[in-house]
């Protein structure tokens, strides 16, 4: 009985995100009946994929009770390096480029993972350090020089502009395809592999995980490496999406948006629970809010404020829920 009620509550967190999404859409429609025009829907669909790709990695990290605030900087490094390769070697295969981006991100993520899993540096401290270090690295590798749009291959920007499905002016771009592939793989991994289940166990009770023989350091190292790899992929997708890569702005501040999407999507910041579906909803919600604010002509400064409020509301609700769940624990 009790656990049924709790299950419903946890389900409610996804339902809640969905309801919030509908609310935002209705509010935007009330103000502007053309909100769901193809043009705006396309903007939303363009905004989501980067968030989903990085969000999937961030979710794995948060499931283990960790956090990675260096993902934006990792995107910057991967975007810059791959952009330089495209600039210096025109004709480089874009899939190879994406692969290199993933490899760079994976390496940077592995550094985070090593610091956290074996050097036992708290995640927030380790990744705050690398947030700054990797951003510096992005400047150093390109000597402060931006990768301009004429250096980004057309085939790469086509990932953003074209897609396999296009219905009445709404394009499901290749970016969305790659993001969906990532989400499906992560969902499968979490549900059907032992390592995926270890991630939940580790976040749910780290000491128990250790005593039950789960290789805690290895799993920790893995999630940060994967998170970095996905941020690296996102760096390449960034180049496709924006058509240029600036060492200072590529991915800057993105970590906050990503963490917001993951948490709004119902992932417990204290680890142990969260679903791919929830995080996807969180990404769609943030994308919709972002576009809605622009469409309604709300000033950019206000956009940041509203954005922050949504995050705070979601976190407050989450914290209340946690306390409620803990009370039920105690009562038993």
């Amino acid at each position: 009985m009790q656990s049924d009620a709790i299950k419903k509550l946890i389900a409610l967190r996804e339902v809640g995100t969905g309801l919030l999404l509908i609310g935002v859409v209705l509010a935007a429609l009330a103000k502007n009946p053309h909100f769901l025009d193809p043009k705006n829907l396309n903007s939303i669909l363009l905004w989501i994929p980067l968030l989903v790709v990085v969000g999937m990695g961030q979710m794995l990290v948060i499931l283990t009770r960790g956090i990675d605030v260096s993902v934006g900087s990792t995107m910057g490094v991967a975007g810059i390096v791959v952009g330089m390769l495209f600039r210096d070697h025109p004709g480089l295969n874009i899939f190879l480029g994406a692969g290199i981006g993933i490899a760079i991100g994976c390496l940077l993520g592995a550094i985070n993972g090593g610091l956290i899993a074996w050097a036992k540096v708290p995640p927030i401290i380790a990744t705050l350090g690398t947030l700054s270090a990797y951003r510096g690295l992005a400047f150093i590798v390109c000597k402060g020089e931006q990768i301009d749009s004429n250096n980004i291959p057309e085939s790469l920007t086509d990932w953003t502009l074209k897609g396999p499905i296009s219905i009445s002016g709404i394009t499901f771009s290749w970016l969305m395809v790659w993001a969906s592939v990532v989400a499906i793989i992560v969902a499968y991994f979490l549900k059907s592999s032992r390592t995926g289940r270890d991630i939940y166990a580790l976040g749910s009770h780290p000491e128990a995980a250790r005593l039950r023989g789960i290789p805690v350091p290895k799993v920790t190292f893995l999630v940060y490496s994967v998170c970095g790899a996905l941020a690296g992929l996102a760096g390449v997708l960034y180049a496709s999406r924006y058509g240029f890569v600036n060492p200072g702005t590529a991915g800057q501040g993105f970590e906050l948006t990503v963490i917001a999407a993951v948490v709004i999507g119902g992932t417990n910041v204290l680890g142990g629970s969260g679903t791919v579906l929830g995080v996807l909803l969180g990404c769609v919600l943030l994308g919709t809010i972002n576009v809605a604010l622009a469409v309604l002509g709300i000033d950019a400064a206000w956009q940041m404020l509203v954005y922050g409020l949504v995050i705070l509301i979601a976190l407050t609700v989450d914290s209340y829920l946690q306390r409620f769940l803990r009370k039920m624990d105690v009562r038993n």
Partner: protein
Amino acid sequence: MAFGGAEVLKGVDIDLFPGEVHGIIGENGAGKSTLGKLIAGVYRPTGGKLTIQGDTCTLGSPRQALDLGIALIHQEPLTFPDLDVAENIFVGRQPKDRFGQIDWSSMYVHAAELLNSIGVKLNPRSKVRGLGVADQQMIELAAALSQKARVLILDETTASLTPKEVAELFAIVRRLRDEGCAVVFVSHRLDEIFEICDRITILRDGEKVGERIPKDSSVPEIVRMMVGREVDEVLRHGGVCSEPVVLQVKDLCLTGVFSNINLSVRKGEIVGMAGLVGAGRTEVARAIFGITPPTSGEILIQNSACDINNPRQAMQAGLALVPEDRQHHGLLLPSSIAENASLAILRSLTKGGLVSGKQIESNAEEYKSKLQIALRSVGQPVKDLSGGNQQKVVLSKWLLTQPKVLILDEPTRGVDVGAKAEVHRLMRELAETGLGILMISSDLQEVLSVSDRILVMREGRVVREFQAQEATQENVMLAATGQEAHAV
């Protein structure tokens, strides 16, 4: 299986036989749980060896122990609240199908079979969050069985179970024993040890004092072995105190933790509270002090009823509590001695939002000489002090609030022998100035030598009261373990 350790445990040998329940008993701190954890690979021994069916093994991790068939069930269940029952049983070893993916349906089937085989009615699909301790222990037990455990260690597993749940657990333990499992039953409950064990190892201060077969032994004999040492009656005070009552507690209850606690402390009296770990003594102290307010009952200070819902109200009413874990609850280790000593009275030292540094220092100097705290200066960080001196700083902190009643929870845990005597002398002196002291201690000798009156708690109730002169280690221990009837 042979084993010998050091320090916490000194040269303990123990043999486990298949089809036998082996009890390990001893006082609090005798090293029972440590022994269990060493066998299960949770701690690494500094010396000694482990032999399983003739093969010598070294255990580096719990995983290795599990692979060898040694499973440990902890007092506090180690389960994963976010995962369901079946996964808690199979975590890390979930069944896979031929594609290498987790086979959820077969996992649920296996889990249901396992739970059924030990007679536990739990839905394998329900989340563990919200389940009771007994259910969680059954899940751990099922996990151990699913790994074909040959050695099963139950570490104080019954501590938080109801009698009915204990009976169910024992039924399972007997069945496992009959199936050839070697069971280690770590406990300080004599009645349970006698009920379930085929052989008992008695530990005292980390050493093995003997091995007995229950039917050839008796409760008083085991108790004598547990307590052992000669009673050192230097400080024994005695004499019935006739001063007025300063603290009176009437029918104090905290649902599920303790019930109908009645006690009183007179002016200048030291009342000792004995009992086993988990008897509810600390919880009573915390309830009196308003940290976890009681669900019902009355607290009277100097005969006037007080409504205490938080520590600040308790302090205003004239209570002070020195907690057991001074490092976490009593001191700010990196801060200076003077700052620590003034913490509880900061409010009264504050003028216009600013704290008077001079006042803080002069207060600390006063207590430094009163309590003879060994230190270079009151500006020294507390973490540099020895355990005994840290305890004195905590005492100063509370004495500065000028309490009428001082509650001490394990006042000498972790301090050396010399400092211990010093703390005892201080307590005596404080009592002579008219302070009422309620002291919780698991050190029987301490309780006996310092207290004027002794209360014994067991399973959330005060079960016995002794005047200092009528109390002995044996009769206090028998009351604490619920064995008085047998002894008479």
